[in-house]
């Protein structure tokens, strides 16, 4: 049997661990820029505030709400505590996302779920919902539908059918809007209709991923609990660059920043790459990307930066376009240990940078080319990007 643990309004719950007086009041966690609500408490949800809403829309409908600035460093610390506790009760645990774990459930009972829930609340301080079922998809469906602070076990066919009964297919993780539209066109709108549909038909309509969900909903596990993160095909760093920009110094500085993040990630996964891709999204033009082959397998800042800066003017066409999003992507990955060192590398410099930043803080020592981004580095919250939390199997 497989268990699924999912924290209830995790970022808010994490804030309540260190600021207990936030309990029972409407709390919103704001993103880095102070504009959007990235997480909300159930009290705030009850007032009609939704995730992603700008604060100026939320204050009129929930005037008594209080707002907290996000702090991923703290959320990651609590996430690791949750993971460690689940690992105490299960031999195989998948770190699925910052606040979710799948685990091999040795004792698939309500009592076990209740005890794990209580342990997480008293020892970590975070309320969670838990589902236990023969498959991952069912387990997640249970915990999602038991929120907040609920749990449930599907041990037999009667319980499984009760769970699926009249539940919209969009409740299934993996059935997005598009798939739901395809299904609706054939009269399939609920989980029980989906599970009773013809398997070959589902495969034809939604490919193998859909078929996997069909098996899982019917109680046959086909998606395994991955205790070890799968080997990467690519490692990518990037995202929004804030306000879209036509300023070459600013865009280049973001390239440098993202290459520094990418090098950190390559070091963490102990891999190097043979190829580097730079991709840019513009405000009113299609996305463009280009790939460059490196001289051998590299993971050092100098080589990757040189390649990225070589690509930049070619990708940034026309140069009058405003850049909004950017990604630097390392491809053709190889284990670091197997790689031949180039004659031109300076391992000492990298080691010194790595040691200083480990001791003093991320980006304390960084490339001088990032100077145009004083606003980004001057704000401590920017040191942390959610995708830089390592080990999760899902973002």
């Amino acid at each position, binding site marked *: 049997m497989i268990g699924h643990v999912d924290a209830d309004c995790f970022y808010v719950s994490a804030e309540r661990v260190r600021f207990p007086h936030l*309990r*029972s009041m409407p709390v919103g966690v*704001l993103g880095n820029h*102070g504009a959007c609500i990235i997480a909300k408490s159930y009290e705030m949800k009850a007032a009609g505030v939704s995730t992603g809403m700008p604060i100026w829309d939320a204050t009129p409908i929930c005037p008594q709400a*209080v707002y*907290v600035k996000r702090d991923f460093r703290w959320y990651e610390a609590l996430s690791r505590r949750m993971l460690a506790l689940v690992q105490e009760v299960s031999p195989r645990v998948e770190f699925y996302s910052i606040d979710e774990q799948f685990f091999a459930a040795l004792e698939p009972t309500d009592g076990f779920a209740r005890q794990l829930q209580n342990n997480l609340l008293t020892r970590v301080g975070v309320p969670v919902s838990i589902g236990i079922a023969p498959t991952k998809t069912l387990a997640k469906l249970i915990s999602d539908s038991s929120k907040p602070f609920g749990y449930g076990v599907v041990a037999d066919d009667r319980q499984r059918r009760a769970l699926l009964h009249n539940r919209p297919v969009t409740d299934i993780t993996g059935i997005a809007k598009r798939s739901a539209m395809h299904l609706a066109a054939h009269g399939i709108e609920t989980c029980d209709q989906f599970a009773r549909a013809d398997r070959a038909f589902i495969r034809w309509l939604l490919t193998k991923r859909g078929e996997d969900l069909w098996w899982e909903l019917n109680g046959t596990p086909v998606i395994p609990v991955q205790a070890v993160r799968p080997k990467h095909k690519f490692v990518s760093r990037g995202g929004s660059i804030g306000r879209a920009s036509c300023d070459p110094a600013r865009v280049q500085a973001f390239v440098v920043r993202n290459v520094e993040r990418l090098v950190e990630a390559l070091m963490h996964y102990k891999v190097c790459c043979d190829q580097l891709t730079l991709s840019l999204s513009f405000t009113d033009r299609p996305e463009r990307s280009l790939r460059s082959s490196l001289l051998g397998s590299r993971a050092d800042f100098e080589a990757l930066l040189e390649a990225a800066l070589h690509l930049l003017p070619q990708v940034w066409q026309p140069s009058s376009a405003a850049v909004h999003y950017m990604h630097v992507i390392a491809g053709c990955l190889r284990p670091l240990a197997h790689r031949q060192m180039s004659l031109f590398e300076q391992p000492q410099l990298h080691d010194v940078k790595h040691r200083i930043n480990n001791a003093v803080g991320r980006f304390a020592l960084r490339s001088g080319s990032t100077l145009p981004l004083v*606003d980004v580095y001057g704000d401590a919250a920017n040191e942390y990007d959610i995708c830089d939390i390592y080990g999760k199997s899902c973002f």
Partner: protein
Amino acid sequence: MCKGISILKARLKQELFEQYELSQRIVTRGAGAQEEVHFMYPGAPPIELPVLHDGQLVIYEWGNRNNKACKLPNTGWCRIESLEAGKWRWLSPEKVVIPADFGLEKSVWFQINEGMEGVLVHDEQLRPHVYMMTQPASHYYQTMTRHDRMPILVGQEI
């Protein structure tokens, strides 16, 4: 800027409630939520703030709100730039901490970990007045509250 603050009721001593009639300031944000005490600048007089002074949590008047008879600056805030330029020197200002759990600006309540910096001065009758210090708002604060000045939070950057 910040036109109101909230402090948890549990942080204030019982004597203060009697001395300053604080019970009328008690508010909660929901069933089961902790009680808070609110201090608002545009609120009904008396305009006051909690202050940590010489290790004691006391209640002082918040700045000078339209009292023409008083020579103190007619405001509730003190810009750090003018303090540093020496414009408050004639009042012998003393730095204090205004303990708070939440701040209010343009109908947005934001989390405060410990409190904010303030300056303490005395009027002609030697009565204490406290002004909230302000600095240029960070990008975050400015987006959140749409105000270009913000308090100087103690041990906290937002």
